């Protein structure tokens, strides 16, 4: 294996991993913090992608600038959904298991509603556009410029969020809730309000990831689900509620998958990611960075 091939694999893997990171962070906020298993996570990604697509093709908006629309809009939508649906489920459930199963059913319903809404609005036809579809040459290797851009933005947002969690008061409260829910409430952390914010942030991250990947892939109303699955793998790999863990796990998964693809074939992508997951679950059931 030559150095240039190694470089190629590493960067391609980090590109894939960067996108995984953002979508997984959103899910981790919901699942890690609240035990809300939101299987409609990928559907918010799909909606974000479609909104960017429509803004770009309809009004010529720069896909990157549409993040300023999809992010806040999705955050508000998440707040509303949390207030209308999830807050009730969370309030009524006594045990963590009950929250998981009820939120699972609820989000399955949401998944179908969102998919069919997209179907009515955008139809089932493949839709997409080209943005920055040019080769980017770095040290003798060639990478698609739009993928590099999407990954850089996704990673940047992920790291920014991580810093926010570490530094800001809200971030500290969220971490406190993740680590010790009852203790945090005792010192005055407002559980329902923070849950709403986290849910909104999770939805916003999915939608923003969607905006980014709309530059890379064709859209149908059914593109979301595979991302939910990948995000779940990353969240479990990195450890529930562990933000830094999710970040590293996403990058690791991206690199492992790419190595598999280069050394064998694209068919091995899913196999390699599940192999890593199984291995980690056997060796470290709480996840790579789980407590």
């Amino acid at each position, binding site marked *: 294996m030559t150095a240039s091939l190694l470089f190629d694999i590493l960067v*391609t893997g980090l590109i894939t991993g960067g996108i995984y990171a953002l979508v997984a962070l959103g899910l981790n906020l919901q699942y890690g913090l609240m035990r809300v298993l939101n299987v409609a996570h990928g559907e918010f990604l799909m909606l974000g992608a479609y909104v960017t697509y429509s803004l770009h093709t309809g009004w010529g908006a720069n896909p990157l600038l549409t993040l300023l629309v999809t992010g806040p809009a999705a955050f508000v939508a998440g707040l509303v959904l949390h207030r209308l649906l999830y807050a009730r489920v969370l309030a009524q459930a006594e045990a963590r298991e009950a929250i998981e199963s009820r939120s699972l059913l609820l989000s399955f319903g949401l998944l179908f509603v969102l998919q069919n809404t997209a*179907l009515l609005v955008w139809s*089932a036809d493949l839709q997409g556009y080209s943005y920055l579809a040019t080769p980017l040459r770095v040290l003798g290797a060639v*990478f698609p*410029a739009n993928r590099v851009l999407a990954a850089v933005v996704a990673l940047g947002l992920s790291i920014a969020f991580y810093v926010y969690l570490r530094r800001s008061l809200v971030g500290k409260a969220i971490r406190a809730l993740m680590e010790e829910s009852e203790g945090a409430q005792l010192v005055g952390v407002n559980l329902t309000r923070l849950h709403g914010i986290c849910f909104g942030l999770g939805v916003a991250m999915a939608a923003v990831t969607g905006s980014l990947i709309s530059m890379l*892939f064709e859209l149908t109303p059914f593109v979301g689900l595979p991302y939910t699955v990948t995000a779940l793998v990353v969240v479990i790999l990195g450890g529930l509620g562990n933000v830094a863990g999710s970040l590293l796990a996403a990058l690791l998964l991206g690199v492992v998958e790419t190595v598999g693809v280069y050394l064998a074939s*694209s068919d091995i992508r899913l196999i390699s990611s599940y192999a890593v997951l199984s291995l980690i679950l056997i060796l470290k059931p709480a996840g790579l960075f789980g407590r």
Partner: protein
Amino acid sequence: MRIRRRDFLKATGGGAAGAVLRGRAWAQAKPIRIGYTLSATGPYSVGAGITQGTGYALWLEQVNAKGGLAVKGEGRRSVEYVTIDDRSEIETAVRFYEKLMGDDKVDLILPPWGTAMNFAVAPVANKYGYPMIGPTVSSNKLKELSFPYFYAILQQPDACMGAFTGFLKELKGQGKVSKVGVAYVNDLFGIEMHGSLTATLKDTGLEIVDTKSYPLGVKDLSPVLKGFKAAGADVFLGLTYPPDNILAASQAKEVDFNPPVYLAAVGTAFPFYRDRFKGAEGVSGIAGWNPKMKYPGAREYYEAHVKKHQKEPDRWASAFAYGSLQILERCVGEVGLDRKKIKEMLDATEFQTVAGPIKFAKGVNVTTPGMVGQWQKGEFEIIWPKALATAPAIIPKPAWA
């Protein structure tokens, strides 16, 4: 039910009207029912919506505008569809076809979209003795399975790949290409096409420098394309489905891979593909039809399709989907709704359709040869075989737009 009958009697004047009038009223009251499922949701919905659903809708509108479908000995009867969305689920489709033929006893059926779906439904149609003409099935296994009531109107893998290799062999002879990189989607369609390709490519003198398969729903083909580029492939040959086809083309540009010949399978012939890649000038793929072909009704079909749906039919299977309805129309006109007689007629007759003359032998269309098309200034020109060509091939392919 009772109210309906009363309304009906009122409408026909209590049976006092003459026999002719009553006959006509009957035609309005008892339409011919044709059943099918198509995928309006799920992964198959993209192809189903472009290739098949539009043709079904157009034909229905046209035939009812003429006063209905002419049935031998009965005059014209209006047509209605009995249909659901099969959600791209094979078991849903099979259940609904069971119901259509077993319980509802519809007059005729039309096929669902896609090779796998047709495979699943063909035995059911066969069991109930309903002729079914599949416009979106391409599989060599059909011949082995032999369902007498199933007819494949589209070119099968051997024909499609025969055209690819025939075309490449000529280019090889002219010294224009020599090294082929093959990528195929790892499902029934891709695997069968790949099998046919390797069989026909064997004695052409072309070298396969790399072969890579990938799963349906693949998200990154750049490693594959970079590999081909590094191996010096001057032919990209992708046995694709639509989403991966589009991914491959966008990434080929992104990793700066522009081989002199770029061939792909399902999706290339979609007008959407041309629009997506700013004309897709010089991109080639499996073809079967274009509006320039001198078949009776071809141009009219194209214009009616654009007028009704505000989108063009694709340049491979769309015309065959519509053509299969023309075939059924002619059969019903000549032998009525007796499905056994329709089958006998399908076995024995050469039909003229917008997709050209079609004759079935052992359930497979043996008239239409495999074809290669190439996007040139907005039209998917047929460039191979030469007898059917609507334009000469552009080699090498121009740079990606």
